[in-house]
């Protein structure tokens, strides 16, 4: 039932939509994020569904809903809920993101996120440093370093590239390599503008004996 409600919300959101395919947010569709906050005054709702395939195990599904608000210039906060099926408690996540500077000829864009997550009786806090730098003319490299209170450090190297320039301006391809605790995984995905304000994302990731298919939608208002 909850699955149907969430899918219904995704469908409803298409009617009111808003976002930008160039911006990378965590989980939309991959783990990597860029160093920029959402715009001051922007509110954004993100929805996503993921299917996890594991060797010799039944697949898992997750539904993630997130609300972001650009409450000040270069700063946003977000709250997110994620449910795993067929079992596991719903997790709650709250985070603060701050962009420190835009990219210039001399320096990459830098930002950081502080987030706290509660899942059942377990909680954790994570600090993530994000950097974004141009690669050739239109492509970008993104580096994320995540330090979690309960886990080993996580390093993500991401890459994004617009598809279709100079004739189309609605799609960005995303790739990432994630390394944590001696295990690496890779992912590729797409973010595509589907209305003036709405973006659909699609991604696949694999590593550590698990593969993941992600479909999501973001809209701002």
């Amino acid at each position, binding site marked *: 039932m909850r699955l149907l409600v969430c899918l219904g919300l995704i469908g409803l959101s298409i009617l009111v939509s808003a976002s930008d395919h160039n911006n990378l947010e965590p989980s939309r569709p991959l783990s990597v994020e860029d160093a920029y906050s959402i*715009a001051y005054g922007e509110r954004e709702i993100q929805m996503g569904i993921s299917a996890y395939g594991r060797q010799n195990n039944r697949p898992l599904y997750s539904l993630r809903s997130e609300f972001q608000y650009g409450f000040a210039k270069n700063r946003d906060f977000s709250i997110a809920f994620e449910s795993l099926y067929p079992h596991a408690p719903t997790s709650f996540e709250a985070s603060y993101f701050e962009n420190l500077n*835009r*990219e210039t000829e001399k320096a990459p864009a830098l930002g950081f996120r502080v987030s706290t997550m509660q899942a059942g009786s377990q909680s954790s806090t994570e600090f993530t440093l994000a950097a974004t730098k141009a690669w050739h003319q239109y492509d970008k490299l993104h580096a994320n370093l995540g330090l979690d209170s309960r886990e080993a450090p996580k390093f993500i190297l991401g890459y994004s590239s617009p598809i279709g320039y100079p004739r189309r*301006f*609605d799609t960005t391809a995303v790739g990432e390599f994630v390394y944590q605790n001696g295990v690496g995984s890779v992912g590729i995905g797409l973010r595509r503008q589907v209305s003036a*304000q709405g973006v659909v994302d699609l991604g696949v990731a694999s590593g550590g004996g698990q593969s993941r298919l992600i479909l999501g939608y973001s809209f701002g208002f």
Partner: protein
Amino acid sequence: MSLVAIVLGAAQVGLPTMPADLPTWLNSNSTDHLFYKPAAYNWDIERIPAFAQDMYATGVGHAMAYEALVVGQAAQLETKTFSSIDWVLKHPPKYPVDEGAVSPTFERKYGYLEKVFDWAHTLHFQVIDVFMHPGWTDAQKEAEVVRLWDFYRAQPYAITGLPMNMETLDSYPYSGIFRKRYPNVNALFWGYHWLQTVNYDMLFRVPIADQSPQYKVIGEQYHRTELYNTQRDFMPMTAEMSPRFARQFPQIANAFDNLHMLHDNVNDILSDESLSESQRQQQVKIAIYRVLASSHLSERSGEGKPLSLHDHRHPEGMPGMGMMKGSDEDSMYMAGMGWMNMSECSHCSIPLDEGPRWGATVSADGWTMLVRCPMCARDMASETPGRVIIRAATEDPNRMLILVSDEEGNWTSNIPGIVFLERFGGHPECSDWSRAFTSKEAFSDFILKNPQYKNDQPLSLPEWSQLNHGKPDTYQKIDRPNPYRGGGK
């Protein structure tokens, strides 16, 4: 001193110098992305998809040209870059495009400038959205546009709403380089600015259903002529393209013109090969400073030392436009029209009426002119080949008459029962005896209150459109040479 040093030194002579009170944000590396004012009307521009997509494509055109200029591809601007932009203009994107993503190098170098451009472009779009929002009265829309202006100018990146002297802003050592060296890409820029300013009179106080038919004419003119018009002497001004809007919202009209002048300044600075990268950065910051609202605090419209940075005088009757090259309070040179007095009817030279009897406008061949009455509009339209749009006041202040002609001069009306009063007499009173009515009943009501017209019959659109009284003897042509081509004062 080496020859190179002498040449570089000479090139720097006369360059504007950095002001002492440059805002600190111009030297900051902060990102500062701003979101538009949240509202129900946002993206209502998409009610006319062709218009929305043409507007989206203007952003791509700007960005592609700037990117080419800063990555060392200036030599390809008139060829490869022009072709790329032209393809996009002919196949415009369905959705708005992030200009920063199309011009990432430009964004890295001139991110502070992008803040000014983005914020002003947001105002452009939101004003359009308000006018295209269904279900609101004109009064509600106009009140919201005032709130949008307040929302816009609350940010430090806001451009001043005061009229600025365009001759002064176009008088620096680098001024005019871009338009001379890259005439075809410059024509594209001025074409975008034509579209971005002509649309407001298409929408302002025009019912939603009557907006789209006008864009068939305007969009055709834009794609066929305005984007490729290399003969224009100066950029299109908002008051030239949308005089009704500019009179009602002079601050916004001035901000758009000052924005477009900033575009021209930046184009010139980036294409001036005598400037070093450091000088370009400095000159772009100075150009921004000149038009920022914060640089003109406590200054007033209509005042200021002539031909100075703080010259905020405007032509008589048009507070929504700064003084132009060679102009004075009474007259200015308009592209395609020659010397005009903006406080007078463009057809009969009699002073324009104020208030609800504002008369009409005639839009043809890329220009829009204010006239006193429907007759002046019709007769002026007959002088111009091609399709014409007349927007005219009726007896109902909430119902504007929109007449659109085909190539043969056959008119289509947005008001099916439109009738006209026309008892030809002296032009000084033409706005009394030439009027449009939304119905025969409205005409009869007027006759009851104005018995001097009791013997006049209502004219249907076909009857009225057959009339033509030619050029009135009151018309006074201002006979002066083009100030942009070596003439004028």
